[in-house]
């Protein structure tokens, strides 16, 4: 018997029923719901910022938060689409537009601060807690996302995990700003957005290992 025949025997023995994956859009909606629920839980535990009512009436805050959420949703959709063979890999670009818009709104916030208060508004003070909070809020979405991604197969494991990490970190940043008061334009751009990028890059490095799968022994 040839080796390929043996492999087929083994695969057939391992062929338990599987449920076809839902569409990337449905999976993205499920993931977003879980992630937002967890973010809300963390915000509740950390207690929302005292000026939350004022912030919610501030267009700039709403736009920045909206862009962060859109980036998360777009990146999550792109990563779920990438694990379905046969779908166009250009769907990964879905995250690009909201991501650029998010950077744009944060940059515009810096400019607004500078015009209002001069160069003092662009000062940076250490705020390493940002990365910790973003990682905590993004932890469950990351785990859920990886479990969901592993049901498919991707030709671009680094890009896929990068997009998932970007989505999780964007959700983390979205939740963070509901209880973290240090949100001057430059602080948000450097510490918070920088943390999002750093976590995404770390995720990309781990991509091939996280998505590696093996066939169970027959």
């Amino acid at each position, binding site marked *: 018997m*040839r*080796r*390929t025949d043996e*492999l*087929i025997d083994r*695969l*057939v*023995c*391992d*062929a*338990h*029923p*599987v*449920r*076809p*994956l839902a*569409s990337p859009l449905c999976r993205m909606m499920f993931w977003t719901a879980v992630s937002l629920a967890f973010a809300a839980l963390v915000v509740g535990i950390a207690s929302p910022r005292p000026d939350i009512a004022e912030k919610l009436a501030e267009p700039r805050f709403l736009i920045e938060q909206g862009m962060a959420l859109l980036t998360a949703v777009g990146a999550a959709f792109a990563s779920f689409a990438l*694990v*379905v*063979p*046969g779908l166009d890999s250009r769907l990964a670009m879905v995250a690009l537009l909201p991501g650029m818009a998010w950077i744009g709104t944060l940059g515009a916030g810096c400019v607004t601060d500078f015009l209002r208060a001069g160069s003092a508004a662009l000062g940076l003070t250490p705020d390493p807690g940002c990365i910790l909070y973003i990682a905590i809020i993004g932890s469950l979405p990351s785990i859920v996302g990886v479990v969901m991604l592993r*049901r*498919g*197969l991707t*030709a671009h494991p680094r890009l896929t995990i990068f997009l998932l990490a970007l989505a999780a970190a964007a959700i983390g940043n979205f939740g963070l700003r509901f209880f973290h008061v240090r949100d001057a334009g430059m602080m948000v751009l450097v510490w918070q957005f920088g943390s999002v990028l750093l976590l995404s890059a770390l995720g990309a490095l781990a991509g091939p290992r996280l998505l590696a*799968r093996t*066939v169970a022994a027959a």
Partner: protein
Amino acid sequence: MPQKGTRTFRLTRKLIRRPPQEGYTSDAKTGKNRAPAKTDREETVAAIEGFLNENVDARPVQAADDPLGALMQAAQSGDRGAYRSLLERLTLRLRLLIRRRAPWLDRDEIEDLVQETLISVHLARASYDPARPFLPWLATIARCRIADAARAYGRRAALDVAMSESVETFCSAATNNHAENVVNFLAVRRALGTLSPAERDALSMLRLRQLTLSEASEESGTSVAALKVAVHRAGKRLRGVLEGENPDEAHR
């Protein structure tokens, strides 16, 4: 020929309607391109390659149009007989496809690649959507595995080149030649160190740079006779050193 109206029929007709390619002939009377009679294997390869190279029309399909998709759908619900049938059909098709797409691979490597693709199909079978055609799904997986194989082949080739340039040798005569050259070079360099400056210069000009006696004489400002004596002594001393004699004795 597949039945009229089926997806396979449409695909085959599309392939036949292409401009003349290798293996196609032109009908002189009608002016239409006519494909030579194709076997099932050739049709399968052409179909899969078509999917690999073109933008795929991923419209929903009926099971009757897509027998492989129907088998996969049955496999997803746990039908092991259908799954075995599917894998056996895929093995044949993948073997032909990979042989064409990666002609640099030998028989064993092709078989390895077929197996890796089957494993990928198995792991990703939940990602197949029965509402979509099967072949684009399979083609994407096969393309990924072929790309992986190409990258691995490139890495192996680079490693082979690096190993061939290494001084370290094993039992191969070809690799030992390099080590011998290194040893010889070291011995010659050591022997050159025993020469006087005048002998070394004479040897360099007359033997290595292949200057004539008059050119070397002009360049060094030494007489022709002195150059002849120096190069003769240098040669004698080198022979002595390289043959294991005492350089002082050879100098005498």
